[in-house]
């Protein structure tokens, strides 16, 4: 199975990269872009088939390493595939 972990900055934390992306899109004529947030996706391939137990383990991974909860939020998407 697979876990997709989305890590992004918490609301209120300045995201200079996101701001630059939005500004650059505006410059390219995409005037409708009001803001952009840049995050990352971490794709984990996992052994086992207990998806509930696996999600709890992935949450622990996020807390322990994948996200810095001082500045970042995370969201986990589990896929059986």
């Amino acid at each position: 199975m697979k876990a997709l972990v989305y890590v992004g900055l918490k609301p209120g934390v300045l995201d200079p990269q996101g701001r630059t992306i939005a500004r650059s899109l505006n410059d390219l004529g995409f005037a409708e872009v009001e803001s952009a947030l840049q995050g990352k996706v971490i794709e984990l391939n996992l052994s086992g088939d207990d998806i509930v137990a696996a999600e709890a383990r992935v949450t622990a991974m996020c807390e322990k390493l994948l996200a810095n909860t001082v500045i970042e939020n995370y969201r986990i998407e589990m896929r059986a595939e």
Partner: protein
Amino acid sequence: MQTAVIRFPASNCDRDAAVALEKITGRKPLIIWHRETELPAGVGFVVMPGGFSYGDYLRSGAIASRSPIVQDIKAKSERGLAVAGFCNGFQILTEAGMLPGALMRNKNLKFVCRPERLTVTNANSRFTSNYDAKSEVVFPVAHHDGNYFADKETIGRVEKEGRVLFRYANNPNGSINDIAGIVNEGGNVFGMMPHPERAIDPLHGGTDGIDLFKSILETL
């Protein structure tokens, strides 16, 4: 006083730190590989050096901060061990939860590498007692992720407790309140983005960093 420098994969200021410590203490520091699990007995002061540990993968300092030796240093720092982290070392200390806040991408997105003027904000700490209050020093900076951030409540507490020891005269990275260096609640763990260990030899442009090392070493 026996000192130590921790070496991570892709540390690159470990030698600078070792040279500074030897010059000031007259004794070679131990160089400790990050896979070690325990700091040797008798080490009184530890430096987390600058560099690009683990290629800055995931987040600057994140992976290094989970290494075995850091867990031991963290436990010992809670019992009073003196620790300083410069540049990547500061990032490692925040990632390890030994200092509050986080170091984010510089506000202007540029890598900054130049001598930077700093004000000694608090000269009553174990790391700054040899400086005159409000004096100015020049330390080199060289970083991409030096933009200090913490939530309002944390910043308020750190400021109120006088734990900001240095501020930038011309903020190079967007850090809140121009913060360049902070100490923990116990006053024994210090981190800063600039490099005092590169300001100990007149041939390198200045010696303002010496008093930082002298300050902490005199308390041990």
